[in-house]
């Protein structure tokens, strides 16, 4: 079965420090991986995706993510956190075998402390 896991429900980080939000996946073959962010009472907004090529992908608002095939991970990172980065983050995976279906993680709530 295809799935994606976000092992941390909550991540706290001080403003200015680097942040990491973890995601692992289990998909047979080559996955397509996405990160989304959700602010309170809003829908999800696309941040970045990995399809193929360079393992480090850059996205919106200074976020980046590293695809690691051997560890089946796709962790979201930012070198210097802002208070405005506080939000709910979702990892998602799709695959050629899933048709157009996407599988979402359970979400990680990020709090950046001033």
């Amino acid at each position, binding site marked *: 079965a295809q799935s994606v896991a976000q092992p941390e*429900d909550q991540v706290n980080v001080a403003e200015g420090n680097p942040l990491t939000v973890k995601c692992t996946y289990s998909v047979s073959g080559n996955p*397509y991986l*996405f990160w*989304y962010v959700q602010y309170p*009472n*809003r*829908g*999800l*907004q*696309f941040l970045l*995706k990995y*399809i193929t090529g360079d393992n480090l992908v850059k996205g919106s608002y200074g976020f980046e993510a590293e695809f690691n095939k051997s560890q089946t991970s796709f962790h979201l990172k930012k070198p210097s956190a802002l208070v405005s980065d506080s939000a709910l983050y*979702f990892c998602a995976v*799709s*695959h*050629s075998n*899933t*048709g*157009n*279906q*996407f599988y*979402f*993680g*359970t*979400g990680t709530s990020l709090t950046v402390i001033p």
Partner: protein
Amino acid sequence: DVKVTQSSRYLVKRTGEKVFLECVQDMDHENMFWYRQDPGLGLRLIYFSYDVKMKEKGDIPEGYSVSREKKERFSLILESASTNQTSMYLCTSGTGGFYQPQHFGDGTRLSIL
């Protein structure tokens, strides 16, 4: 920019009522999806559609149905609302291809009393 519009941000209904949630997208996308979002469970797929008059069940279709009479509009129907259907409902659209991101509406927070 793609715009996905959900007709209501907040909705309160009573058990047993038939409830309609509407979603419209303005980018001529083939694919549209309905998810529900619950704390600790993430997003779960209810139904999706690849084309007009076409629908496919997702992971949790029980108690729901959908309608897609026009390409831009995808409706979710709760046939007889129950309290366990209280949730945040998210509509998305996207182009063909599993490597393209989905575009989300702002959600409808539905409460069933």
